[in-house]
């Protein structure tokens, strides 16, 4: 059974924030490009396009990834969660609320990546230490805040989420 070699525009079926999504993309287009330019999901940002800033973080099949380092065609059959899926119709996620209340953003361009990454952390480790938060988020560069309020916001959200759990 020979494997098909895909080129040109490829039809990809995937799941994004729980919804089934189809798109056409060239294999050279990254998942980030497709999210932003084909699907209008512009919450993930391009800060470096080589995996060094975390602004494009999404969760793919339950694992935090940099969507700039994923080919669009690799999304076939995957389940992807983006910043647009973090809040529910009922309201903000505790992390989003905590970022607001702790003033944990300035320009805001790194914020979606931080929230997606922090959510992945708290799902794996609901009670992280400050060091564990800083370690997990080391791949998310923020140039405005000095990280202090971001780290506080994540610890604060973790505490609220544990209290609600």
């Amino acid at each position, binding site marked *: *059974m*020979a*494997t*098909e*070699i*895909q*080129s040109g525009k*490829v039809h990809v079926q995937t799941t994004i924030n729980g919804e089934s999504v189809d798109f056409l993309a*060239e*294999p*050279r287009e*990254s998942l980030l490009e497709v999210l932003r330019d084909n699907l209008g999901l512009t919450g993930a940002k391009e800060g470096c*396009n*080589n*995996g*060094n800033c*975390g602004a494009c*973080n999404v969760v*793919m099949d339950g*694992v*935090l*990834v*940099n969507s700039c*380092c*994923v*080919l669009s*065609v*690799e999304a*076939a059959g995957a389940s992807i969660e983006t910043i647009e899926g973090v809040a529910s119709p009922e309201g903000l996620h505790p992390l989003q609320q905590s970022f607001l209340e702790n003033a944990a953003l300035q320009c805001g361009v790194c914020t979606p990546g931080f929230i997606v*990454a922090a959510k*992945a*952390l708290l799902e794996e480790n609901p009670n992280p230490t400050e060091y564990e938060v800083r*370690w*997990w*988020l*080391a*791949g*998310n560069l923020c140039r405005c805040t000095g990280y202090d309020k971001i780290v506080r916001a994540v610890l604060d959200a973790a505490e609220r989420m544990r209290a609600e759990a």
Partner: protein
Amino acid sequence: MRAIQYAAPSTVEDAVAILAEHGSDARMLAGGTDLIVQVREDARDTGVFVDAKKIPELMDLSVNADGSTTLGAAVPCHQLYNNAQFAASYPAVVDAARIIGSTGIQGRASVGGNLCNSGPAGDTIPPLIVHSAVCNIAGPDGERTVAVEDFCTAPGRNVLADGELLVSLTLPKPPAGSGSHYLRFIPRNEMDIAVVGAGASLVLDGESITAARISLGAVAPTPLFVQAAGDALIGLTANEDSFAVAADIARDAASPIDDMRGTIAHRKQLSYVLTQRALRGARARAQGGSPTNGH
């Protein structure tokens, strides 16, 4: 990025067939954290991306009947530190898996990919070397094995011929009384390329060293297996004096260059310091503890 083709074979045979057909224009795509970026930035010219992640053998992580472990070439780093058995057996490899890129990178990047990228500073390579890992390679002419220390041939190059792929690594069962550690020096605390990396494994009988392997990264065109440094420790007591002997040999073996990430003088000094620290960490683990220095 140049236009590319993409294939996601489900068997090693199919992958070999595609690689053989496209020769040097094709490469295996594991986590893609090096390959995608390199092609995007014109640092590598690859036209056919062959996705490794649908091939069961490349995603395998299991313990064999002889106690050795098979690590599929595309198994992402995050699976290693979340696997208690693997982490207990091959701590130096896990040390490396935990510090490659970010959490997001570790969600995709694989040890096999790191090895095939064959960078002199590849963090997982010294740990594989000190664990005596062996590469299982498949190709048009069948299968072959190569010791990890013989795998890389130059910066970005390795022994894989056109049509060949790295299927998995075999890591021998660590003997009783053994411990390993890998650490690197970087100017930041994360998200950096090793200025120097050092891996060490020790097998202790009481305080006495019965086997030792030391490997350095980023001090030569390929990750360096400093066999003489390990050999010099055999029969010695696992103490600071002995470690200093090995560290001296390691420093002498290092032949680094000046580049944007470090200077020759600094790398020489770091070769010494990191060898000592890797040995201390390996000793701590051999004695049931954990390393106290370095990330």
